[in-house]
């Protein structure tokens, strides 16, 4: 494990120690009160889910057109993290909604399209796991499809009538809330980078194992 990686892991850990302290000290939102504080983790997780879907889609595109195995590994790693972050977004969102809206779930455009995005990347992992030979190319196409869905999820709150807060909430955050929010975004961005690096390393090692098995097979055939 490289030294820089350990340093970034330490930075992520420190940021996640500081973030809740800042969240506790942040001012209360006047209408929602305490439950609004879920926003400081929920929204950055959503942003990182979008980012991860883009990373997976772009890497999948590179793999499809240039046949670079490294790009495929990045796409797989990012898809897995998209599912992780997506799961957390889809769980924490309803926890906020239960208090703010009075219901756990509403089939509105933002929630439904987010669920769809998450399901696309779950499909990616399922294709990858059970698709057999050629599943890498098939799953790359699924990742491209998932990436194409991201802009629709983002603008859904502005285009359709939804219960979910609009995209204008973040740019209009009050001082005191704004700094805390962007600190949490930075913490999740660092965490995302660390997790992606870890997962790519795992995929690289797995590829090396496969290569060595093939080499062993070749040696047995020769002897």
């Amino acid at each position, binding site marked *: 494990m490289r030294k820089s990686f350990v340093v970034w892991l330490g930075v992520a850990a420190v940021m996640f120690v*500081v973030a809740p302290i800042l969240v506790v000290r942040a001012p209360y939102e006047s209408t929602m009160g305490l439950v609004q504080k*879920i926003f400081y983790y929920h929204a950055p997780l959503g942003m990182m889910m979008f980012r991860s879907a883009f990373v997976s889609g772009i890497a999948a595109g590179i793999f499809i057109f240039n046949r670079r195995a490294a790009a495929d590994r990045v796409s797989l790693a990012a898809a897995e993290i998209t599912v992780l972050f997506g*799961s*957390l977004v889809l769980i924490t969102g309803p*926890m906020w909604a239960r208090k703010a809206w009075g219901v756990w779930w509403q089939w509105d455009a933002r929630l439904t399209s987010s669920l769809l995005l998450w399901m696309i990347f779950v499909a990616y992992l399922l294709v990858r796991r059970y698709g057999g030979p050629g599943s890498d190319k098939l799953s790359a196409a699924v990742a491209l499809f998932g990436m194409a869905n991201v802009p629709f999820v983002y603008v859904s709150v502005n285009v359709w009538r939804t219960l979910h807060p609009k995209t204008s909430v973040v740019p209009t955050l009050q001082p005191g809330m704004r700094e805390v929010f962007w600190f949490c975004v930075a913490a999740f961005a660092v965490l995302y980078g660390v997790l992606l690096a870890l*997962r790519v390393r795992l995929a690289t*090692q797995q590829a090396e194992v496969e290569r060595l098995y093939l080499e*062993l097979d070749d040696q047995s055939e020769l002897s």
Partner: protein
Amino acid sequence: MKTRNGVRRCAMSLLLVGLLASAAPALALSAQQPGSQTEAAREGYVPVKDLPPAEQLPAAPLVLGAYALIWVGVLVYVWSISRRLASVDRELVALRRMVDTRR
């Protein structure tokens, strides 16, 4: 390889400690919940904050639950990757030894 595993284990522990330590200040959130407001219900629309305490849904368990879920989710994922990495590393060492002895 042993040193690399040691560094990895150390790094994982660092992240674990960081995430767990961050759970402590979050407990303070529950203590900060603003006092329930019991204004008389107006005609028609009644803001949630003006409902009597018995009808209000406490926010603290939802906030703490959300934060705890995120930390647990991330920790489980980090643990899962580190376990898979350790297993693949062991397999790699064994395979390299086999390839070298056959050469």
